[in-house]
């Protein structure tokens, strides 16, 4: 009697390799965006194109990998949830340390918004290269992308600061057993 063989799974790189790819992606996108944003002038249009296409290719590869990544992979596309965001905001307002431990829900919202914005910015850039009427749209989307990035940086550093504040604060001293009334020796 033969048992049915399990369905073949696509070979996927190790988690460590996936994390390395995410680091590379983050570096390419941030570096490319900074260079593209600073070289949007006509005189440096060649640099702007080079940096912009770098971001476009990085985002396209990231989205493609996100679509085929198996469950549990760090490459899976973010699935932001409004309920999780509401819960996270509640923790943050109450000063609950769960707001800055692990992977806060706000980061998955930021990742989704940034990926969408970067895709729109780069695709509109390609379109504006062909149709000059779209230049203003590309500029507006780039400015929106810049503010999202500024927000992302602020959230990341804010959470990092909160985490460090908590670890730097002295732990509450336990009540000494002898100071309790009625304690037997």
């Amino acid at each position, binding site marked *: 009697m033969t048992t049915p063989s399990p369905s073949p799974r696509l070979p996927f790189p190790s988690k460590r390799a996936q994390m390395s790819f995410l*680091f*590379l992606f*983050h*570096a*390419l996108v*941030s*570096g*490319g965006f*900074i*260079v593209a944003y*600073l*070289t949007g*002038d006509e*005189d*440096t249009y*060649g*640099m*702007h*194109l*080079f*940096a912009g296409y*770098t971001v476009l290719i990085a985002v396209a590869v990231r989205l493609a990998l996100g679509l085929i990544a198996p469950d549990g992979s760090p490459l899976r596309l973010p699935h932001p949830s409004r309920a999780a965001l509401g819960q996270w905001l509640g923790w943050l307002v109450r000063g609950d340390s769960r707001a800055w431990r692990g992977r806060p829900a706000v980061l998955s919202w930021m990742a989704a918004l940034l990926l969408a914005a970067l895709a729109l910015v780069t695709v509109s850039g390609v379109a504006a290269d062909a149709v000059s009427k779209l230049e203003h749209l590309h500029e507006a989307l780039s400015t929106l992308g810049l503010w999202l990035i500024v927000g992302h940086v602020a959230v*990341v550093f804010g959470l*990092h600061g909160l985490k460090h504040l908590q670890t730097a604060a002295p732990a509450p001293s336990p009540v000494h057993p002898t100071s309790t009334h009625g304690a037997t020796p």
Partner: protein
Amino acid sequence: MLRRMLLHMAVATLLIASAAFAWQVMADGDGAGSTAGTLVRVLAD
């Protein structure tokens, strides 16, 4: 981890800026003097 990520970003920015600059110089292709001219324009930006 944050420090490592910031280092990666700084290195990538410099590499992309250098590669993009080389691309721009090659695309201009005006011969001698164009590199300095492009560098001045980029820094002026």
